[in-house]
């Protein structure tokens, strides 16, 4: 919980800088790219996040990567600060929170769409439109598949969950039978 609060604070600080110079979306993209780089280079992430190694060495490694990157100077300084404060290990969480904050600013809602089978593009568009009408926000769909749903889909937008899976319907039917609603 404490770490979460700290990451939110760092995310808000970077967003504040981004809002001042109007480049918060660019900073968000840089953070996302760095997070993806860390995910793809696990050893790099482990080295810069591991406090066993001297901080100068870790900063030198980070600097090497930063030099070759296209990241803005603000983001580079931000990452260097995270390393100094030993918060570089929480970069994924900071990035997620930053995206959430930028989504709120941009009136964007992220919809997690889980389907039993691959969703057709036309259906996806219809669904996004329906969700945008429902939330009055721009919907960014994040698609995934789960065969355990049997059929149908589940949509999660923040705290809102719309469950239209066959599995959920079966569960509902089962509970109704147990309650004796059909006896």
């Amino acid at each position: 919980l404490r770490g979460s609060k700290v990451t939110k604070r760092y995310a808000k600080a970077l967003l504040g800088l981004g809002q001042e110079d109007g480049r918060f979306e660019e900073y968000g993209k840089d953070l996302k790219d760095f997070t993806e780089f860390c995910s793809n280079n696990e050893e790099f992430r482990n080295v810069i996040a591991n406090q066993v190694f001297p901080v100068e060495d870790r900063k030198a490694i980070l600097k090497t990567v930063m030099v070759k990157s296209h990241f803005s100077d603000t983001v580079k300084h931000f990452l260097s600060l995270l390393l100094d404060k030993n918060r570089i290990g929480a970069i994924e969480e900071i990035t997620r929170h930053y995206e959430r904050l930028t989504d709120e600013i941009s009136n964007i809602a992220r919809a997690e769409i889980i389907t039993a089978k691959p969703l057709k593009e036309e259906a996806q568009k219809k669904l996004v439109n329906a969700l945008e009408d429902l939330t009055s926000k721009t919907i960014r769909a994040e698609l995934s598949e789960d065969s355990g749903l049997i059929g149908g889909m589940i949509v999660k937008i923040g705290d809102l969950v719309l469950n239209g899976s066959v599995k959920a319907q079966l569960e509902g039917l089962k509970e109704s039978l147990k309650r004796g609603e059909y006896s």
Partner: protein
Amino acid sequence: MEVSDLPTERRKHRRLQLKGDGVALLRTPSSHKTIVGEIMDISVDGVSFRYISGEEPDHGPSELSLVSADHSFYLGSLPIRTVSDLEMAKIPFGSVSTRRRGLKFGKMGLLGMLILFLYVAISLCNNGSSTAYAAEQAVSHESSAETVNEGGHGNSQGADRKGDLLDLLYRFMNFALLVIILGWGMKKAGVKNLLASRVKDIRQKLDELKSEKAAFESKYRDIEERLRAFEEEKKRIIEEYKSEGQAEKDKIVAEAKARVKQIIDQAELIIQQEMQSARDRLKQEVVDLAAEKAQDILSKRITDDDQDKLVDEFIERVGKLH
């Protein structure tokens, strides 16, 4: 014990010498032997007799019988103790000897004592002596101190009967004088009044005792009455306790019955609940199995068209939410 070791005869009373005037029969029950001898002398204290013996003398517990010479008097079963048994002379040409045995009379009753005195008196008469001697013996028995004094004269007076008679006369007079003085003294001291007073006291005491007896009898009756009342109270209390016990028993039985009913009802309720619970569990298991089976079937049979239809329905429902 040897004969010579026996204690020497020392009778306190004067002896009367008898020569052939009486016979002594000494019977020893333990050995069934009887010695017959001639009485030599006798007093109120003891007797000695001589006898002929060819055996060792037996000094065990014996009984003495005395018989007068003319067989007119017999005195039997006298308690005695042998105090001497001396050999007097040996008869030539044999082991037979003449012996003298001294005996001391044991304790006798008053009657036995009187008969003994009588025997001594009869013996004296038979021996030509005055019967006053027997009376003198009786007086001397009552006053042992006087007898002891007179005992100091020894056998010299046995020869002088006249002197003895005078002595007896003086004693009699002395005794008579004593009786007169005693009677006069008693009269003077008002013994009669004393006795009358004593009688009065005794009567008074008797009356007191009678009244006490009456009081005690009354108390006894009172106690008897209380005892009767106590018995009745006891019966009443027992009855009361019995009735209380019965009531308590009834109460306990009623409580037990109620408790039994409660337990049975509770048990029935628990059974009903358990049955319902079992039914519910069974139902849930059936539903779970049915749902699982349905899920398997749907997983196998659902097609892409079905999925598209479900998606469309879902989108339609989302659209209706707006």
